[in-house]
């Protein structure tokens, strides 16, 4: 549908759009991206975002390594990924153009700050000729904007010094983007007021730059068309923008409140998990106690010590830290104490690509401990789902007295979406039983016949003094035991306790038909891309279904049967095929891997193509 606006420009209705803002690390791209995302939510679009920032805090200005980007996908229906390819790229300098051009849709809009396309910056971006002057951009709608100068002009009457004024140009870019998608400026102005209310000069300069950008787009003959994305038909209710780390933090806090036990979160700063510690340290009024420990090992041990003393002990980390925590996790298995570990996976091995995403810690989470040391492993499938999975982790950890590993990743951690705020009464129950004082038949390893879980007797309770530790325990009494037969029984009991959890989680559920030609099985952050690819294949009449796992250990009931009802099974993962090998060994099915390991999430089209290939084989 198309109409014309008051200025005589065409206003075109589109169903979906992907926009990427890119510039130097210091250009404020994350800020304007977030603003654009919030605005999109506010006008009722479904959103999904992803930032892309360098590992260096301030790489040299204008360099390829210093480019920071923020991509946003918004639509009039559900969106499951941040979008494969941007239709609009805002590039604040040559480096930003160079790094991002390859992703832009052919025919897409490229808005460039031409003032930055000077000799020095072109050299830094390793351009041999100026892309504004050669024909390398001929496949795109290029909008050259002298943004630096126009911003300078717009803000010159403000009281800010020149350098600070120059920093407002991200709002000029945002102004252009707002016009391009027919967005109101008012909410951004209100946000500026809220943020800089007392710093009048900063407020005025940014507001002027924003308006100037908007007006420029509105009047320039370079931009003849702008777009409107109608509100999505989302379920009614209250929503909140969350990224995965915020959601995980919130899930831990809410679960601890429901369990009526304080949360003790012990962690060591590591990208991309630090934000959880930062977030939780702000929630002390929920009786959350955070400890920034001396190292990863200490963090896991402190969390376990807190659990021993009756709190919800939790820790968070990323891959290298998971390796360091392995021994303490084994202790948690042996002592059968609740412990939640959120592992925000990043590309490894070793330091790897610390700011980039990957899913290659699955086998480590499942098996990376010495001895027979089963633990519960969960994986959220979207940023908002990090809330629910963190909550589920606390529920299972306390009910079954076990460590629970949550496998988030860099993508989920930083990607944001609309999270439907639940009603407190709808939250699953987390009932933590405490052992009464002087209980006559108390035995630290007396298992509940149903859950096989041992009692959580808290230090400070009269008459329940007991000793636990890493040495094998005699069943029931918990005394140290070196007896081989007892050891075998205890291994079996610990294992049965974890495998029995399968009865306490939802059974495997296939999205689409229950049987057919091809089943895509995924876990964690790949959910959105798989879902979209399967939807598109089904729309074209293919017999394809999707099964997504949130519980990796134990696996849900009915999974083997579900797999066997399909002719082929394909497993997209951001690793070499770790879940795939689990499924093959567990169920003797000929599942095939679809690996992607480029430090970024799957594109929908990559999975879509793989579906086509698999069906044609």
């Amino acid at each position, binding site marked *: 549908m198309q109409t014309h606006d008051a200025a005589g420009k065409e206003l075109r209705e589109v169903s979906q759009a992907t926009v990427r803002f890119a510039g130097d690390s210091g250009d404020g791209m994350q800020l304007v991206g977030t603003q654009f995302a*919030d605005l999109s*939510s506010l006008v009722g679009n479904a959103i999904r975002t992803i930032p892309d920032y360098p590992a260096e805090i301030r790489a040299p200005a204008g360099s390829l390594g210093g480019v920071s980007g923020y991509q946003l996908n918004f639509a009039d229906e559900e969106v499951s990924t941040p979008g494969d390819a941007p239709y609009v790229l805002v590039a604040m300098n040559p480096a930003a153009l160079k790094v991002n051009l390859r992703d832009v849709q052919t025919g897409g809009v490229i808005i460039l700050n031409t003032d930055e396309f000077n000799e020095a910056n072109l050299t830094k971006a390793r351009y041999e000729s100026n892309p504004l002057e050669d024909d390398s951009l001929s496949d795109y709608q290029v909008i050259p904007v002298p943004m630096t100068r126009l911003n300078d002009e717009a803000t010159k009457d403000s009281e800010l010094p020149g350098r600070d004024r120059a920093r407002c140009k991200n709002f000029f870019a945002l102004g252009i983007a707002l016009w391009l998608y027919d967005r109101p400026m008012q909410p951004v102005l209100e946000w500026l007021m809220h943020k800089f209310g007392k710093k009048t000069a900063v407020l005025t300069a940014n507001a002027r730059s924003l308006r100037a950008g908007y007006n420029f787009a509105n009047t320039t003959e370079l931009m003849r068309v702008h777009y409107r994305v109608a509100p999505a038909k989302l379920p*009614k*209710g*209250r*929503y*909140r*923008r969350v990224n995965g780390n915020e959601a995980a933090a*919130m899930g831990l806090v*809410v679960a*601890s*409140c*429901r369990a*009526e*036990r*304080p949360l*003790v979160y012990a962690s060591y700063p590591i990208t991309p998990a630090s934000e959880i510690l930062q977030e939780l340290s702000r*929630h*002390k*009024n*929920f*009786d*959350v*106690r955070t*400890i920034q*420990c*001396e*190292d990863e*090992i*200490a*963090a896991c*041990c*402190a*969390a*376990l*010590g*807190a659990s*021993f*003393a*009756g*709190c919800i*002990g939790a820790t968070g980390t990323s891959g290298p830290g998971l390796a360091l925590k392995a*021994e303490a996790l*084994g*202790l948690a298995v042996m002592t059968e104490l609740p412990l939640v570990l959120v592992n925000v996976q990043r590309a490894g091995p070793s330091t790897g690509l610390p700011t980039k995403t990957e899913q290659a810690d699955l086998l480590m989470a499942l098996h990376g401990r010495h001895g027979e040391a089963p633990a519960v492993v969960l994986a959220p499938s979207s940023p908002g789902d990090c809330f629910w999975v963190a909550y589920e982790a606390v529920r299972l950890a306390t009910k079954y007295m076990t460590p629970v590993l949550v496998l988030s990743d860099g993508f989920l951690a930083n990607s944001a979406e609309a999270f439907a705020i639940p009603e*407190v009464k709808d*939250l699953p129950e987390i009932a933590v039983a*405490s052992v009464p004082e002087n209980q006559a038949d108390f035995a630290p390893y007396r298992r509940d016949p149903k859950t096989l879980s041992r009692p959580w007797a*808290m*230090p*400070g*309770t*009269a008459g329940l*003094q*007991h*000793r*636990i*530790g*890493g040495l094998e325990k005699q069943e029931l009494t918990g005394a*140290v035991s070196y007896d081989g037969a007892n050891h075998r029984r205890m291994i079996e009991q610990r294992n049965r306790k974890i495998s029995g959890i399968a009865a306490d989680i939802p059974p495997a559920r296939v999205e689409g038909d229950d049987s057919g030609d091809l089943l895509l099985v995924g876990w964690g952050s790949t959910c959105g891309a798989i879902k979209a690819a399967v939807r598109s294949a089904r729309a074209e009449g293919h017999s394809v279904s999707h099964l997504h796992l949130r519980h990796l250990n134990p696996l849900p009931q009915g999974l083997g049967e579900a797999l066997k009802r399909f002719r082929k099974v394909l497993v997209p993962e951001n690793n070499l095929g770790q879940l795939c090998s689990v499924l093959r060994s567990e169920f003797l099915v000929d599942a095939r891997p679809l690996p992607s390991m480029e430090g970024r999430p799957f594109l929908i089209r990559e999975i879509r193509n793989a579906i086509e290939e698999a069906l044609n084989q």
Partner: protein
Amino acid sequence: MNDTCCPPTQAPEPAPSLTRKDFQTPQEVRWCPGCGDYGILNVTQRVLAAQGIPPHKVVFVSGIGCSSRFPYYVNTYGFHSIHGRAPAIATGVKCANPDLQVWVVTGDGDGLSIGTNHLIHAIRRNLDINILLFNNRIYGLTKGQYSPTSELGKRTKTSPDGTIERPIWPVRTALAGQATFVARTVYSDPNHMATTLEAAARHRGTAFVEILQNCNVFNDGAFDHEADRKKTDEQRIFLEDGKPVRFGKDGCKGILVENMEPVVVDLPPGGEPPPGSTLIHNTKAVSPALGELLAALVPPNFPIATGVFRDVERPIYDQELRGQVEAAISKQGKGRIEDLLNSGTTWEVR
């Protein structure tokens, strides 16, 4: 939310009359016959009984090694953890429930090799815990390899030609970590040990006690010099706050500092030594220099100093943490789930 884990500070319960027996467990004690640890266990149980805190309010946390079996033999709550990590586990216990009295039992390998990091950081934070480091200068449980406190040149199974690394000094390490209470005692002197442990238990903040301990199987006689009761006068300085530093028969010797080096000086036997004739001990000194100087006195040129090196007050980590939580609650009100869920950028879909 209830406050099960962190009740507000209550009036102390009337101290029940406790005996050593209340702190014994039925578990058979499995140290080697003649091990110095037996004596330490006995004294610790006595001290626990005397202080009047009921067993269920006490937690012993240990790592790995002979000494780390300790919690099994004390009828309190106990956590025998993994190698070197006891201070980290204890940190979690204490932050979860600051009302518990928490003891860490560790050894020279556990505390000063694999776990040095945690030990120093627990001390630096000044958690209200008591750390007992049994120093026998050998790896006993793994059967006789040199330890980080083994003397330079020591021949062991893994150093047949003698070690080529200098030992680490427990008391000096604790002082470097800004410990608020540091003491040293000897396994063979139960009364001194009891006094020292009582002082440690009374101290608010991290109390670090090095206990010189004999491993009669793999390092027999390691501290014969210090433990020899016949030569106690000559070979030990009994540190007392505010008192002259002296040793020898009738206190006939003292320690002075010349050119920043300690030297042994003669004192008139008995009575108060003349002013300036020897160092006066000061456990409250802001500077750690005196403690460090005394801790570094070693045989054969000097006697060894035992007793309390340092005993000062500083804010306590677990209490500060609790304070921040209470301040947040009193300022913002007790957190409500609804408020948390509805914070940040929210909007309504109608």
